[in-house]
């Protein structure tokens, strides 16, 4: 039996309100579900796009590097023919002797540190850089002799020479003296070394 406080008017209002609310809630949940689905899709699309962009960037970078490398490689005969055997220390002494005689130098002294491998952050999948620090001290008749000697030395040494200190001082101005100028040069000598070649010795 219906309770005494049951009221048709109130119940109709309640039913109507609940129906509207239920419907609107259903609509909201549907829209929310759809929105979440779109949000996920959007995130996935964004990630795919970023990944693809990164791949394009990497591919472009690699392609440009490859193109540059090949270009340099094909146009640089010296580099192409480099034996990648590291510092050729044995060839240094005859070369110094030859050019010091040519430029009338006196008391030429050459010193080198033991060759080392650079431990910088190079990838070194195939090739190392081998280096040695060195110094040349000599006397010359004129300053021009000293410059020319250094020009020849730099041009003919194998590998890569970086002068870090060059000091020339005038001692006298005697016309026939070989000791008018004293020169001291410090340098770093570097050369490429094939990793496979370096293995047996290391």
């Amino acid at each position: 039996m219906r309770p005494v406080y049951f009221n048709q008017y109130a119940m109709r209002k309640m039913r109507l309100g609940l129906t509207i609310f239920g419907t609107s809630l259903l609509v909201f949940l549907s829209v929310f579900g759809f929105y979440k689905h779109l949000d996920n899709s959007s995130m996935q699309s964004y990630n795919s796009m970023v990944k693809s962009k990164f791949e394009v960037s990497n591919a472009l970078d690699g392609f440009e590097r490859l193109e540059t490398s090949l270009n340099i490689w094909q146009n640089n005969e010296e580099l192409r023919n480099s034996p990648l055997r590291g510092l050729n220390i044995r060839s240094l002494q005859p070369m110094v002797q030859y050019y010091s005689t040519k430029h009338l130098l006196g008391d030429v002294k050459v010193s080198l540190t033991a060759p080392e491998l650079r431990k910088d952050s190079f990838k070194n999948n195939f090739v190392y850089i081998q280096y040695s620090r060195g110094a040349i001290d000599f006397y010359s008749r004129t300053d021009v002799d000293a410059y020319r000697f250094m020009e020849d030395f730099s041009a003919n040494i194998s590998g890569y020479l970086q002068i870090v200190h060059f000091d020339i001082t005038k001692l006298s101005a005697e016309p026939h003296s070989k000791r008018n100028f004293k020169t001291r040069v410090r340098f770093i000598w570097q050369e490429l070394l094939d990793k496979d070649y370096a293995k047996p010795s290391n």
Partner: protein
Amino acid sequence: MWRSLSSEASSKILLLIGDEGASVLYFRNGTIDSRFFLSSPGAVNADKLKNILREDKEAQVYLLLEHLDQAYEPRMVPITNPLGVERASLAQLNKELPEAYLRTAQKIKKFHANINRDWLICNIYTPYESPIANWIEFLLPFPNLIMGIYFMPLEAGNIFVSSRTADETLEPSWHIVIFRTRASGYRISVYYNDKIAISRIINPKLHEIPEVSAGNLEMEVNNTIDYLKKTLALDELKVSLTLLLNDEIAPFIRLDKLESSSCRIMTPAQLSKQLGYEHLIAETEKFLDHLLLAEAASKKLQRAVHTPQTHRQFKFATYTFWAARLSHLASALVITMSLYLAFESYGKIKEINSYRHSLSDYEAQLRSVRSKAEILRLSVQQPINLSKVSEIVDLYIFLTKNNVSPIDQIRELGKISGENALSAYKWEFNDPMLLITNGALVEGSNIRADRVYTLQSSLTIPVAADVDIKLRGEAIRAFYAKAFPELTISVSNYMENDSSLQNTSSVIVSMSYSPLSKLENLEVYSFSNKGRFSQNHGGEE
């Protein structure tokens, strides 16, 4: 809350319950649909009311009490807080009366004549028994909501006040009204402004002989005024009088016998017209029932009382009503949020399309680059390890990049100085075997390193005694500035007499170079533990 609920109803059923029966008025869509009188709930024509209740289930029911057995009791209440006056009076009434009584209280005025400044209150109550109980039991089985039970004399205060003309609304404030209903008979009520003070049914037999009835009414009025004076402890009291009587009795009222200060006599029909109900009451009508009900339907009623059963029903309806209202509000909110999300979804769809479009562009670019790379690989005629070549070239670039040499400077120096022209030359290049700076990337290479260095050189050029040293110094500076635009060049005159070189003066040329100024975006790390760099300049510390 009650008003909100009430205002929702488009139809109302009002019952004026008296000892003789109940007058019924059915108010539908703002107009009076039907009106009739029922002698009892079990009367033959009660089916008419039952049909209305069955057909219009949403019609709200208002019960107005106009029976004999209701008491109006003026009382002084010593209360300081005006808001608690009625509550205190009701609490007192609850102690005095049994539970089965309907009761309420209405404050009338603050009584200044009393030294204690008490409030004058009217306690109103009636036992819950026949005829009220009969009608409630009759109505409860129907689905219609009983909005409340009202004391008609109390609610009528509003009606009679609104019927007064502008002049009558002035002093005096005490007002006696006599009217007649079919449900109960003659009733005399005393109001202070619109607040009920006293009310009672006059002997029901009054109406049988008009002259006698008129005399009795005069006596009742005078007795009531006397009673009021005694209750209020006043010698003089100004009272206005309204007699709502039909033409049978009104002519026999002797105004000079009345103690009231003013008096007006109106027929129910005249009052009906005055209140705007042209055809509600006929000219010969004696009773005021339907006019009172019509006014009650259109006005805000003041005080509802409930039986426990009607109270439960009303509370349930009220809660349901507000729950429905809240659900409407919540629905509006939810719909708004849905619209917002729909709008956002539209934005997301556009976003996804944009991403997909970009993705297809990138994929096309990727295919193009890969195809170019493949063509490049195929173009290499010799079988070589491209990765190894790439590494060798990277290292080559690294070693040759920024590989500066003093030879260039020396060569230029020779051009202007001539052989044996300078006395000293010093050239410093900060160690190129610098530790690698993490942020720098060698151009065109995968090697993350750079040579951050500074270059300092100076030379001393002797100047002959007969040459203007300043002009010579300026010429040398201009020459070097042109030859080495990237260098910072300064010239100072060195005036010391050097006897060994047989010169009297020299020009010192200082040159410096810092490629860091060209690498503003380079992130140079400090290696203070090794004493190599400072972060600001990248030079040797």
